């Protein structure tokens, strides 16, 4: 029996799932009663650990609260304070700069890796494992390795640059390069999205390639006119997912400068260049004991994430193809 019906298709042909209409029989209702206790733990968990904190943080964003004692209502003061705080804007800029670079670069690298993993060679399983390996290493370890690799005088990256006559770059000590260093670090995790792209590549019908080849299309044309259009839904997923994760970037900056900053005096990278949004939120909550400001920042970030996602979704109407399923 069809309980959930696909009722409409968009004018451009993309399938859209309509609001489900439930018609429960007596047996279905009995089954639901039996099932309810089994899904109850998840429902309770969701209400207690997701919905309640979300609502509570909205409440706190309009209060002055240290995390202990009573919250004091302050209206929109936390939001007003943030708009006049230069470090808030700095952290926002740092985060958007990172996201704006890391997401598209990561997308390209993931597709290239997926194409490499999709080659029909005998040792492909070994290549796939090797390419995916950095993605399963703890970010903590990767960051420490990165500090060594990016050492301006003794690091391997600057050594390679010097071989082609390039300058000595102070990757983690020069504010012009610090954010880009984190963008590079993020690419070590490209194996995860690459696996998803690999699955998308393998779902492309082979006969399309055969027909194109018969018509004389070269590899580049086949990629441009067959592969790329058919994996656009996955590209859209990766863009949205990457953007949402990108604006929440925290761990690499926290590891780089959250402990000791070596010889430098800074607390969030040179010229606060690694003061990413969530890092600043963390400082507000756990170093300055200002949960009200931290909650206001969380809600602003949520709104930014929603806006970015909506913009990407609307933009995607012009380039995402759902025709072949």
């Amino acid at each position, binding site marked *: 029996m069809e309980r959930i019906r696909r009722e409409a298709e968009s004018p451009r042909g993309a399938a859209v799932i309509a609001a489900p209409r439930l018609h429960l029989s007596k047996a279905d209702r009995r089954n639901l009663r039996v099932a309810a206790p089994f899904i109850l733990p998840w429902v309770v968990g969701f209400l207690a650990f997701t919905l309640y904190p979300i609502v509570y943080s909205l409440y706190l964003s309009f209060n002055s609260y240290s995390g202990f004692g009573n919250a004091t209502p302050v209206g929109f003061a936390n939001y007003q304070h943030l708009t006049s705080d230069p470090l808030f804007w700095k952290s926002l800029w740092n985060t958007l700069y990172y996201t704006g670079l890391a997401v598209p670069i990561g997308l390209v690298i993931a597709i290239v890796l997926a194409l490499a993993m999709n080659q029909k060679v005998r040792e492909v399983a070994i290549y796939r494992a090797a390419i995916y390996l950095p993605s399963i290493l703890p970010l903590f370890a990767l960051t420490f390795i990165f500090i060594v690799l990016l050492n301006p005088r003794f690091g391997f990256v600057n050594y390679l640059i010097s071989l082609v006559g390039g300058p000595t770059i*102070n990757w983690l000590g*020069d504010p012009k390069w610090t954010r880009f260093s984190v963008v590079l670090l993020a690419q070590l995790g490209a194996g995860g999205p690459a696996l998803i792209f690999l699955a998308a590549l393998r779902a492309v019908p082979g006969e399309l390639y055969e027909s194109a080849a018969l018509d004389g299309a070269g590899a580049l044309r086949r990629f441009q006119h067959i592969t790329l259009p058919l994996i656009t839904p996955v590209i859209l997923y990766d863009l949205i997912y990457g953007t949402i994760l990108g604006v929440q970037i925290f761990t690499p900056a926290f590891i780089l400068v959250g*402990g*000791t900053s070596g010889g430098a*005096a800074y607390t969030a990278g040179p010229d606060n260049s690694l003061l990413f949004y969530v890092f600043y939120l963390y400082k507000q909550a756990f170093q300055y004991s200002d949960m009200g400001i931290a909650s206001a920042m969380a809600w602003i970030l949520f709104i930014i994430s929603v806006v970015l996602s909506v913009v990407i979704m609307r933009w995607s109407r012009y380039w995402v193809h759902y025709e072949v399923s």
Partner: protein
Amino acid sequence: MSLLSWRGWKASLVFVSVLLAACGGGNTSTAAPLAGCNSGTTLATFWTSHTPPDSDSLKHIVDAFNKQSTATCVKLVQVPGSETDIAKLTTAVRSGTGPDVYMLDRFTVAERAAAGVLEDLSQYGAASLAGSYVDFAWAEANFKGKPYALPFDTDTRALYYRKDLLQAAGVTDLSALDPANGPPTIDQVRTMANKVNHKTGGAYDIVGFIPYLNQGWHYTWGFVYGGSFFDKSSCKVTPNDPKIVQAYTDMFTNWDKALGVDAVQTFVSSYNPPNQPTQQDPFLTGHLGFVISGDWVLGQIATYAPNLKYGVTYIPVPKKGDQPATWAGGWSDVIPKNAKNAKGGYEFMKYIAGEPGQRVYTKETQHTPTIKSLQSDSSLFPGDHQFFIKQLSAAHSRPPLPVGAFYWDQLSTAQDAAVRNTMAPQAALDAAATATNAKLQPFCPLA
């Protein structure tokens, strides 16, 4: 139809009964909670973010306490955190899983007390211990007239220099660095340091002196220049005190300009990167001629570079005849809110922050005790440690403010701007004053 048969219900009942029995039966036992503890003692947890070698010494103190206590058994737990980062503590206390004792940087006690994280220790009679501790340490452990911590260690800062590097650079007359002749002037140190500077391939591999490395903080130079960071009468921070502005200008902006901002920053990133192991410190490895640091470095030298040819003297002063200046920091022990065994925790606090604990810590780590009675025990301060102890009576301390961590970050941001010449010291410190005073104002008056 029933979901479970009668047999199923019975089996479930037995299972739940066994589970409850297993969960609830521990209270009547008199066995020691941990190995090394006496039987009949109750468990108290002690959290610290310290790392070796300091945490090793804390373990020794805990072991000694457990051996002699008939009431409390302490479990030492190393947790993530730092001087100003108490995320682990905050979340644990809120969820009722916090420790009974926590080691907290003393200059943040007022801030954490104001936030409501700490128990007022008046209920345990802590106020009666006031006379046992040096005055500044006790003042830092109090907020609005109530004790919230027992002071643990302290430290003072001084100028370390590498005799071998100076001599190799042709600096043979080191009399200006003899503490018997009083503090050297900044110009004297600059002259010597410039001779030590050395470049290979256009980049520094040895630098004479970078004033802001290690413990050359804003507070250090602000105090050396005679600046005041807080005005009690107006309840306002004063990082833009003209003397502090001058310190920033001379020791951060102009010093870095003279060495070359990019060149010196590349040196710092190469030889003193973030999260560097102590044994790779540029002073210990011969890449730095002078460095400002604390007495704990004596222990590090003994461990990692026992044959180092070094000396210790006062932090240089702006002009001949100026009084030497340093500042003292240190840690403290606190009882967080919702502690399950606060009574046992306080018993341990009195031990670790008292004579027995501080004696062991001083001996093993070369930190300085805050207990007055130990400061006159010269057997605890061999060699150069005596020099640090002598400085303590005139040492400054950071103002114990309910926004101490925020103020520190603001001063550091201004320092970074001054070092990189991205902002004039006056403007950077004005911004620090405005931001910090806005945060501080709701807590005023502080008395």
